[in-house]
C-alpha cells in the first residue's frame, strides 16, 4: 500500500502531506525534513528511487519526481511497483495540470482542499483507486458542482463574492 504522499518545494517547505497511516504531527514534520534532506542532495539525471528504510522503517520504498519548484514524493511498500508508482505521480501531476491549466506551486498552495480532493480520487486508503486523469477530473468536477450547489442553497453570502476567485 501507499504509506504517504508528500509535495514539497525545493526549499523544503511542505505543500501537501498526507499519511495513510496515522503519525503524530511532529513525526510527520521530521519525516518531511529527512526526506527533503535526502532529496536535495541528489543530482539530476539519477534514478527517481530512494532507499527509504532508514527513514520510514522496514519495507518502504520512496519514489519522487521533480517538477519545476516542487518535489512529488510517494512512499509505499513492496506491494507496489516502483515504475508504476512513478507513473502514478505522473497521473497526479497530469490531473493537477488539467485542473489548473499549467499547474504551478502557487496553485497547490492556494487550492489546498482541492488538491486533497484530487488525491483522494487517485489514492484511497493507501490503495491506488484510479489511474486515469480524465476519470479523476470528472469525479472532482462533479464534487465541486455539487458543493457549489449545496453551498448556494445553504448560504446567502453577503460579501462572499469578494472571496470567489471566479
Amino acid at each position, binding site marked *: *500500500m501507499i504509506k504517504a504522499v508528500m509535495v514539497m518545494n525545493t526549499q523544503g*517547505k*511542505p505543500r501537501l502531506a498526507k499519511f*495513510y497511516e*496515522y503519525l503524530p*504531527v511532529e513525526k*510527520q514534520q521530521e519525516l518531511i525534513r529527512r526526506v527533503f534532506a535526502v532529496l536535495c542532495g541528489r543530482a539530476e539525471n*539519477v*534514478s*527517481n*528511487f*530512494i*532507499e527509504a*528504510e*532508514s527513514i520510514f522503517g522496514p519495507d518502504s520504498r520512496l519514489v519522487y519526481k521533480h517538477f519545476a519548484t516542487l518535489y512529488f514524493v510517494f512512499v509505499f511498500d513492496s*506491494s507496489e*511497483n*516502483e*515504475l*508504476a508508482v*512513478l*507513473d502514478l505521480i*505522473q497521473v497526479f501531476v497530469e490531473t493537477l495540470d488539467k*485542473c*489548473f*491549466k499549467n499547474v504551478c506551486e502557487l*496553485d497547490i*498552495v*492556494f*487550492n*489546498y*482542499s482541492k488538491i*486533497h*480532493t484530487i488525491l*483522494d480520487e487517485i489514492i*484511497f*486508503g493507501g*490503495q*491506488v*483507486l*484510479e*489511474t*486515469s486523469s480524465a476519470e479523476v477530473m470528472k*469525479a472532482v*468536477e*462533479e*464534487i*465541486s*458542482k455539487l*458543493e*457549489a450547489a*449545496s*453551498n448556494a442553497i*445553504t*448560504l446567502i*453570502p453577503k460579501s*462572499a463574492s469578494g*472571496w*470567489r476567485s*471566479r
Partner: protein
Amino acid sequence: MGSQGGFYQSKEFLDLVKSIGEARSKAEEDRIVLSEIETLKRRISEPDIPKRKMKEYIIRLVYVEMLGHDASFGYIHAVKMTHDDSLLVKRTGYLAVTLFLNEDHDLIILIVNTIQKDLKSDNYLVVCAALNVVCKLINEETIPAMLPQVVELLVHPKEAVRKKAIMALHRFYHKSPSSVSHLVSNFRKVHIMWLHLFQRLCDNDPGVMGATLCPLFDLITKDVNSYKDLVISFVSILKQVAERRLPKAYDYHQMPAPFIQIKLLKILALLGSGDKQASEDMYTVVGDIFRKCDSSSNIGNAVLYECICCVSSIYPNPKLLESAADVISRFLKSDSHNLKYMGIDALSRLIKISPEIAEQHQLAVIDCLEDPDDTLKRKTFELLYKMTKSTNVEVIVDRMIDYMIRINDNHYKTEIASRCVELAEQFAPSNQWFIQTMNKVFEHAGDLVNIKVAHNLMRLIAEGFGEDDDTADSQLRSSAVESYLRILGEPKLPSVFLRVICWVLGEYGTADGKFSASYITGKLCDVAEAYSNDETVKAYAVTALMKIYAFEIASGKKVDMLPECQTLMEELLASHSTDLQQRAYELQVVIGLDAHAVDCIMPSDASCEDIEVDKGLSFLDGYIQESIEKGAQPYIPESERSGILNISNFRNQDHNEASSHSLRFEAYELPKPTMQSRIPPASLASTELVPVPEPMYPRESYQTPVPSVSLDAGSSELKLRLDGVQKKWGRPTYSPATSTSNSTLQKTVNGITQVDGASTSNSRTRETYDSRKPQIEISPEKQKLAASLFGGSSKTEKRPAAVHKISKASSHVMEKSHVPKYSMEVASEKTASVQQPPDLLDLGEPTVTSTSPLVDPFKQLEGLLDTTQVASAVNHGSIAAIESPDMMTLYADTPAAIRNSDLLSGLSNPSIINMPGDTTTTQPMQSSKGPNLKDSLERDALVRQMGVTPSSQNPNLFKDLLG
C-alpha cells in the same frame, strides 16, 4: 467555471500563505504561524460564524498543522462540521478530521454516528466522503458498527462507491483480520461475480474488479493454498486485459489497464511459487505479455518488470527465463537510471534460478557499482550480496567495505557492515582474511555491529584453525596481535573493537615472546587512559593487564608494574564502578601470589578450557558447621519459608490472598525492609561480599510471603540464592524447590562463584575465561565446512550456505545441550559451568534441549557431503569414538576440570553427539583444509597484485566477481 470553482479562499488566507512563502527564516515563519493560530483561536470561538467562513478557518488550521504547529484547539470544530448537511462543509469537515485525528482519538466517538448516517445517504458523494473517513478513522472497536453498511455498499449502483467500499473492507482487514474474516468468502464472491460479469460483458466496470485485486492480493499473501482454484480465472482476466478487451478508458499511455496487469502478475507470482501445475497455466499469458508489452513507455517497463518478478517466482520455464533475461539486458543497457535500477533488481531475483545470467551482464553490473547514483549503487551491492560465493567473496567484501567507509548514513552503514560480517563468516577463504576483514569492519563501523560479531572474532582467534595445527594458530594470533598493536595507534576506535583488542592483547600479547610484557601493558594502560569514560573498555583492559602479569609471574619472571599502570590501579581502586574496583583488587591480589598459585588461577592460553564449579559449595561445610554451633540460624530455602508462613500466619486465612499481597495486621517489630528477610541469617553469615544487612529478628518477622515471581526477578541481583542447590542444612522434611527453572540454576551458579570467599578472584576470572568455550566450537567447524563445501562450484553455491547455517545452528544446540547433560550426568553435585557471564557471550537463555534435534542437522550435513567424504567421515567417526575417552582424560587432567567417571562415560558415548560428534564432522574437513587455505591465501595475494581498485576495468576483477 474558473479553475478554483468551489474551492475559494479568502484574501486573508492568501496573505497568510504568501507571507509564509516569503518568510526568510524558520523563526519568522513560526512567528507568522503563531500569530495566525492566535487569530484563528479567537475567530473560531466567535458565535454565529457563517459556514463558509468556518470552512475556511478549518482549512487554515489544516494548513497550519501541516507546517508542524499544534491545531488541536480546532479539532472539535472540524468534528462539528462533519455534522453539517451541506456537502461542501461536510466534506471539509471530513477532510480535516482525517488529517487531524487518529483512529484512537477521543473525538472519534462523536463522528461515528454521522458516518453511519452518511453511509446511507442518497447522495453518492456523501457516501464516498464517509467511506474515505471510514478508511482512516475506524479502529478495531468501531469496525463492527460500520461493517454491515459498508458491506451493503458493495452492491451500490455507482461504481465509484463499490470500489471505495471494497477498499474500505480491505482496510478493515488490515486493521483487524478477524473482524472481516467471515467476509473473506465475500471477497471471493465479489471477485467471482465481477469475474463473471467481466467475462460476459467487458464493459461492465473492470475498475471494481481491479479494486478487488487489492484485498485479494493481501489475502493470498497470507494463505496461498486456499486460492489456488482462482489461478485459472486470474489467468483469464489477465489474458483479456492484455488482449485489450477492456474499454479504451482503461488504457494508460496505450497500455491496457497496466495497474490491473501489475496486480494480477503479483498475484500470479504468489500463486505459482513452487507450484508446477499452477505455473504451467500461467506460462502462455506471461509469455504473451512479454511479447506485447511496449518497452518504450515507463508503464510498459513496469509491467515487464512485474513479469520478470513473476517468472522468477513461479516454477521456472526456460523460454520465459530467456525472455526475462532479454528484458533485463535491455533494462541494464538503458540510459535511464530507473531502468538500470529495475534491471539490477530483476537480475538479483533471476539469479536465484539461473546464476549464469549474471555473467552476460558483468560489465553493466560493474558500471552500476561505479555509478554516482547512491540508490543504484546500493541496489547493486544487494545483487552482489546475493551472488557471493567463496570464489568472489574477497572482491565483494572489499568493495562493500570501501563503500561502507565512504558513507555517513548510519542505517545503511549498519546494514552493509552486518552483510560484510555475514559474508565473511559464511565464505571466508582463510582465518587470516577473516580477521583482517573484521578489523576493517570494526574500525569503520565498530559501534554499529552486533556485539556477537566481536565475540565470534575473539573465539576464532582463541580457537584458531584446530587442535592439530599449533603453529598456524600461533601465527594467526601473533599476526592478530601485531595488527592490533598497529591499529591502536589510530585515534578514536569504536568501543567494541577496543574490547576485542584488549582481550586479544591480554590473552596472546606476550605469547610469542615478540613483545615484552611492559610494552603490552603500556599499550593497555594507554587504552584505559585514552578511553577513560568507557568503563567496559577499561574493564577489559584491566583484565588483560591481569592476564599479562599472571603469565609473567607464572613463567617465573619478576613483575614490576609500570608507573602508569600503578596510577591506573590507584584510580580504579577508588572507582565509582564496583566492577572496575573489583577487577583492580583482583589484579592486586594476583600480583601478590606466587608462581604456582597464579598458574592455577590463570593458566596460559586456557580460554578454551572448561571450568568446574562446585555448585553445592561443599567447601563451606566446615564454616557453616562452625557458624551453626555459634548459634547462627540454619538456612531455610525460600519455598519452605513461604510454606511455614502460610501455616503459621493464620491471620491470613486465605492462602492466595497471603501470597498476593502482604498486608499485615499486627505491629511491626523492627523497621526493616521486608525484602531483606529473604536472605536467611545463616547464609548471610557465610557471605562477606553480599551487601545485605543481617536481619536478626525472629522468624515471624519475615513472614512476608514472597511470590515465586519476585523470586525470579530477584535472581538478577547480587544476592546469594541457594534454591536449587543441594541442601546442606535446613529441615530435611522439605523437598528442595522443584519449580526452579534451569535459568535460575545457572544464575545461582554465577551468584555463588561471586560470593565464594577466598577463591573469588580465581573462580571469577576462570569463569570469564572458560565460559567462552561453548561458542568457540562453531568457528573452526564453520571454516572447515566452508572450505570443504564451497569448493567453488558456482551452481551449488546457495545450498551449502544453507547447510552451513544448519550446522551453525546445530552446534549451538549442541553447546546448549552441554548444560543439561552435565547436570544430569554429574547428579547435581558438580556441574560444569558452561554458562557464560552476560558481559562476554550472549547465548540467550540456556534451555534444556532434547537430544533429538542434535542428530538431525548432522544427518542432513552428511547427506550433503560427498559419498566418499561420508564414508571417511564415518570411519573417522568410529575412530574418534574409540579415541574419545583418551581425549576426555586429557580434559580431565586440566587443573580445574575435575570430572567423575560418570561424566566421562556419558561423554564418550558416541550416540550422544558431543565430543565424538564433533570429531565426526570435523575430521574430514581438516584433511582438506590445509591446501585449501593455502589456495585461498594465494588467491588473495594474486587479487591484490592484480590491483583490484575501484576504477580499473580489470578483466580479472570480473572473473573473480562473476566467474
